[in-house]
């Protein structure tokens, strides 16, 4: 793995972390309304996986998808703008926090209905296959989504059709307020792959190199015509499920324990040890990104809101 790539990863993870912190701040100030689902702590999954994609690959994400959209190259301004409901947003403020979408980057959908994105990713993968392209599709979803029918329906179809798609479970130990063990009777969600005749891979979601490696292999497998792969990345969300959830349902000490394996700290230590980015440089980078985040939020906020006349064109293509 080249040092450069890890430096890019490091920066992207910091960007996502500080972006999400800013979102929380703006939400508390009422400058972002409705709801937010943040991904602090899970940055290695989005950045590690998305960096394995080709530009022509397809991607679907969920309501907890800010980090994934940024990892795919969406500008912070477009993301902030969307969350603020302004025309500076990637969907011009129509979609909001749960629907960051960018077809120009193959980010074909962000789903607010649990499980709904999986069949869509299978469809994109099959479309690519039928059109003779070797572009693949990757879909992110959570541990809780593995209990809804569409998860299994999507894996089953992908497997019988050998669709070039990679299913990535971000197992952050909770589906909303419910610990996985209360809703799901298996230890490793990756084991569910066997029910659909495909490989299931468990990966440390805090280790970005491991995530990148696993996803790269799965994508290669899909492009080669060998079908889909299910990857379970074990990770953790530092924030509550959404909005102002205090997450009282956590086990005592659990959060602190996970913070000790913070993905940014882990990669930072690796980079420092490799002499690629020392503590001072990391600190400087954080400050720089913080500035970038604040500027992006300010810039996004300048845009006007869309008019009713404009959104009318978004209902039907005709």
């Amino acid at each position: 793995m080249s040092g450069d790539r890890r430096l890019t990863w490091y920066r992207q993870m910091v960007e996502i972390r500080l972006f999400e912190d800013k979102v929380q701040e703006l939400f508390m100030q009422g400058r972002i309304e409705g709801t937010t689902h943040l991904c602090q702590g899970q940055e290695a999954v989005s950045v590690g996986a998305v960096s394995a994609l080709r530009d022509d690959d397809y991607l679907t994400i969920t309501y907890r998808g800010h980090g994934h959209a940024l990892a795919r190259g969406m500008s912070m301004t477009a993301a902030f703008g969307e969350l603020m409901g302004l025309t500076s947003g990637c969907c011009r403020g129509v979609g909001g926090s749960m629907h960051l979408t960018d077809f120009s980057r193959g980010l074909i959908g962000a789903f607010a209905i649990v499980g709904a994105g999986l069949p869509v990713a299978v469809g994109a993968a099959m479309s690519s296959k039928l059109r003779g392209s070797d572009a693949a599709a990757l879909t992110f979803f959570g541990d809780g989504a593995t209990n809804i029918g569409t998860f299994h329906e999507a894996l089953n179809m992908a497997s019988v059709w050998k669709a070039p798609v990679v299913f990535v479970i971000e197992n952050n130990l909770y589906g909303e307020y419910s610990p996985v063990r209360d809703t799901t009777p298996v230890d490793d969600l990756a084991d569910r792959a066997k029910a659909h005749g495909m490989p299931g891979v468990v990966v440390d979601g805090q280790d970005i190199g491991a995530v990148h490696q696993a996803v790269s292999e799965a994508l290669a497998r899909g492009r080669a015509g060998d079908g889909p792969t299910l990857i379970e990345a074990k990770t953790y969300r530092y924030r509550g499920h959404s909005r102002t959830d205090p997450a009282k349902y956590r086990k005592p000490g659990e959060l602190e324990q996970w913070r000790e394996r913070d993905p940014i700290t882990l990669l930072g230590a690796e980079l420092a040890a490799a002499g690629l980015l020392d503590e001072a440089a990391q600190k400087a980078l954080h400050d720089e990104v913080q500035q970038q985040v604040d500027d992006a939020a300010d810039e996004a906020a300048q845009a006007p809101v869309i008019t009713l006349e404009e959104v009318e064109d978004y209902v039907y293509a005709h």
Partner: protein
Amino acid sequence: MSTRTEGAVAEPEAGTVELSYREAINAALADELASDPTTLLMGEDVATAGGVFKTNEGLSDTFGTDRIRNTPICENGFMGVALGMAVTGLRPIVEIMFSDFLPTAADAIVNELPKFRFMSGGQCEVPVTVRAIGGGTGRFGTQHSATGESWYMGLPGLKVATAGTPGSAYSVLRAAIRSNDPVIFFEHKGLYGRKGPVVRGDGGISPLGDAAVLREGSDVTIVATLLMLDRALAAAEQLAGDGIDAEVVELRWLRPFDVDSVQASLAKTKRLLIAEEQVHVAGWGASLISELTLRGWRWDNAPHVVSLPDHLLIPYSPSLEDALIPSAERIAAEARAAVGK
């Protein structure tokens, strides 16, 4: 089998109390759970932190997690579970966190719950109550803002109810839970903080099917549900200032469909205004106008409708959401147009 089982627990004292819409739902659940040990509440995170909208505060402490049961995320699956429970001696109450998720459970809702008794030749009863939490103004975006209230009103075998005030929330929900047929009870998440008088206790249970005249008036009949009912009442206050005396009818039940009450009001006011937080086509408002017409009403004064536009969806954009969901002012303005003032 599914006739109610009176529990040992004594009924709470009757009497009018001031409760929020959220507290009224909570009280209705608590009173029914206490009165009948065969009732239970199930859904996603219903037992944790009082539920996502805090309507279930304290219930799991009082009734335990067997009866206040968290489910995995699988609406169609646990709706089917509720059906299996209902035909074998229990009376499940199912919480659907957002009405937008009802379609996820639509096979159970359309093909199983309303048809099960019928297809069996009357061998069973299906006492399932579905609590669907819907509605806009929360900036939840296109997939989390539907009221859904009219989606299932065309299904014989099902009953459909709504509540627009704390008082109706308590009385209608209790009536729904006591029904031996499947009922979908619609709540509006924009109303949870709204306070109002509630007649608590068995005396507060309203007759199943009845609409309610929440404000008497002689100039125009405003028919509404959920948040629109709340805003219609506010509009009526504004209209009173202009000397317009509006009657406000809450359509608490869409199936059975209480056309009689509306017709009676209309006979008095001669003018109809429908306020609905949904597209008018295929909704209860259109059905109401049709039923009245079929009964021979001549519309010497054409009816007026305030609703969501037929050619748009609810966007996240807060200012646009506000522009689309009818306000008390818009309802009042349309009422003025209806009375020609």
